[in-house]
């Protein structure tokens, strides 16, 4: 009796452990690396980029592109994604999604549906970077065949990281950051914009990787400005620069100031620290931002004697002025042109002075226009590179 019952028990357990309903083997799924969302007459045009494993890691690589793209229209994003099954032999699998590219027009109109879907879905991770396609269709960016990185979506993501580490703060905005910025009263989101530079039609073919200089390249250049969860404009290069200073997300970058008509002074930032403070003046909050920037001399285009301490001090103060001016300019632009607080001054007030914030938060955008911000900067030059004196003087004399 006991043996029979044990036998039955084993059979039941074995049967129930053989597998799971929803199992998907690797050869049954398509790994999606990029998702592009464009507007269409029906609603949305979805394009997904599928990695072709054989072309990425295979021993013999053919000239074929190592990613494929599928597109489908639908009334909603979810519907369009499911409609893709009519074209794809394998089910789309989104856990390895590297980037979501959203068309500018969709971002101007309504992005909330996208955010809801992406956060609700169990496959898409909250740390996917989100990028806006400027001037081009989102799918064009995903389509460009690229050098160096095999998969176009990966190229977009890595360019963002590289730029963040070495040029300005792209502050690669992930899905979760975007949600937090949108949901918070005191800050408006900003997303990085990507465009295709060059010939888009050429960019789609593998010919793009055959030449040394590609006919088409993906470029991440601009910051978008959002207000009330809708995209309202783009920062130009100066404003982007000032924005990077204000949010203090610079890891390593170059500061450039012209010294005469053609030449410039350049400093390489290697440490950029920001201190924020909020004080109350006559019942109104005033935001104080102090920069502490440590630099190396990078490139000197004019004659300046770096052996002399006074000259170094002078150089430092030139850059201090530059940073301060640039930041003020950006704030002014944000207050007048966009009336949108993308820096997060509201959040600073919220954190420091929660009581004052309660009165302001209902109508923060209009209060933001009259916000007083005081900026101070301290630039330190640590060393002049490998050269002690001034190269230019040696040559000219």
């Amino acid at each position, binding site marked *: 009796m006991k043996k029979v019952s044990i036998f039955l028990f084993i059979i039941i357990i074995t049967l129930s452990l053989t597998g799971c309903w929803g199992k998907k083997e690797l050869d049954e799924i398509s790994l999606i690396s990029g998702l592009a969302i464009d507007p269409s007459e029906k609603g949305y045009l979805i394009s997904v980029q599928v990695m072709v494993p054989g072309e990425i890691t295979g021993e013999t690589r053919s000239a074929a592109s190592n990613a494929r793209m599928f597109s489908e229209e639908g009334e909603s994003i979810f519907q369009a994604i499911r409609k893709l099954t009519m074209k794809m032999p394998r089910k789309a699998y989104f856990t390895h999604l590297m980037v979501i590219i959203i068309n500018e027009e969709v971002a101007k109109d309504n992005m909330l549906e996208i955010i809801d879907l992406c956060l609700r879905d169990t496959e898409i991770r909250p*740390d996917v970077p989100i990028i806006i396609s400027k001037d081009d269709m989102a799918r064009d960016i995903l389509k460009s065949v690229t050098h160096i990185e095999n998969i176009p979506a990966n190229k977009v993501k890595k360019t963002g990281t590289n730029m963040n580490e070495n040029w300005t703060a792209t502050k690669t905005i992930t899905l979760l950051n975007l949600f937090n910025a949108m*949901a918070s009263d005191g800050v408006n989101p900003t997303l990085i914009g990507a465009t295709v530079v060059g010939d888009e039609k050429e960019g789609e073919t593998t010919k793009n990787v055959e030449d040394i200089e590609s006919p088409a390249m993906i470029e991440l250049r601009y910051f978008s400005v959002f207000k009330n969860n809708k995209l309202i404009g783009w920062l130009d290069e100066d404003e982007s620069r000032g924005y990077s200073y204000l949010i203090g997300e610079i890891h390593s970058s170059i500061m450039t100031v012209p010294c005469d008509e053609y030449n410039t002074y350049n400093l390489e930032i290697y440490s950029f620290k920001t201190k924020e403070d909020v004080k109350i003046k006559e019942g109104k909050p005033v935001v104080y931002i102090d920069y502490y920037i440590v630099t190396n001399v990078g490139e000197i285009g004019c004659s300046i004697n770096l052996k002399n301490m006074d000259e170094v001090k002078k150089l430092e103060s030139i850059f201090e002025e530059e940073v301060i001016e640039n930041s003020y300019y950006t704030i002014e632009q944000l207050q007048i042109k966009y009336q949108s607080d993308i820096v997060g001054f509201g959040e600073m007030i919220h954190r*420091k002075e929660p009581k004052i914030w309660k009165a302001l938060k209902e109508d923060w955008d209009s209060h933001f226009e009259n916000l007083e911000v005081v900026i101070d900067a301290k630039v330190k030059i640590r060393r002049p590179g490998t050269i002690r004196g001034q190269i230019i003087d040696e040559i000219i004399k």
Partner: protein
Amino acid sequence: MEKAKISLLQLYTLMVLFGLGSSSLLGLGASAKQDAWIAILIGNIAGMVLLLLYGYIFKNYPDSSFIETVELVLGKIIGRVIAFLYIIYLLYKATLVLRDIMELILLYVLTATHMLVVGILAMTVVLYAIFLGIETICRFSQIAFITVPMKMLYVFGAIASGITDFNHLKPVLENGWMPVLNATFPLISSFPFGEMVVFLMVFPYVNKKEKAIKTGILAIITVGIVLTLITIGNIITIGPLMIELAIFPTIQTAKMINIMDFIQRIEGLSVITFLTCSMTKTIVYAYAASIGLNVFFKSKNYRYYIIPVFLVILLGSIYTEYNMTVHLFVGLRLVPFFVNTPFEVIIPLLLITVIIIKNFFKKRNQY
């Protein structure tokens, strides 16, 4: 009651795992926003007070299981009614925890599997555990205790990934103490701290009874520290707004971990670590329920009740709640008021009052 002895260390590990079950998964105190961790610390203190109350009951009846104690203190009729209600309470709590387990697995691991299959598999483990008895359960808890430091590793993993923002913790006490206290009482004080009332069924097995309560306090402090750390980790990683929205915020945090593009996508592992605690919790409830039934019906062996307990918990967890919305509403809104408060605070207080009065008369009769 079975004949068994457990050590203080085993009691400690069992209590810590029990305390972290489910509670570490759900965003406890989400209504207090960025102050959720303060709410948990206050709940921790309330939990210690509650445990001292249970300790008083245990001190007066150190050799009888709680169901027996209720009958002894409150007499034949009222005592038996309340004892039976306690058994239902234990079974109901087990169904809630099992539902958490099933929802977690269905959401993140086996998305297309039927709930019943997951339930049967989980309950089979529970059934086997209670069949082997409390000594085996305790030995299991000693091994499974490794998941507790692992939980804390997630917090450090999130910090190491560079995705955390300590500014999310500010401003502290934005809306004063009221939202914090509202989150603490009755939700956090009862879940997981007040739930320790079930350990009145386990304390009699401890070999050094006089130190049982002290160990319990230590376990509650551990639970409080781990929960606070996890909550702070969640707040600084995904932010208080997301915690309010997410069903399992802790898993969302684990999803975000990405150390140097090398250690990433570890939510599968995190589901298992958090599941271990929830399983321990179900096992303790199911065990207490079958022991309770055995004591209540004065039968010889608690193992007679394993199959009924198995069926009640399994079917109860699936059919009492229609969907996740109902489950969260019931679990986080109704249960703390209408189930936890009476069974974890009011009835124990009533018992203590009766015990004090009885002791008073006993003393007077002696002289």
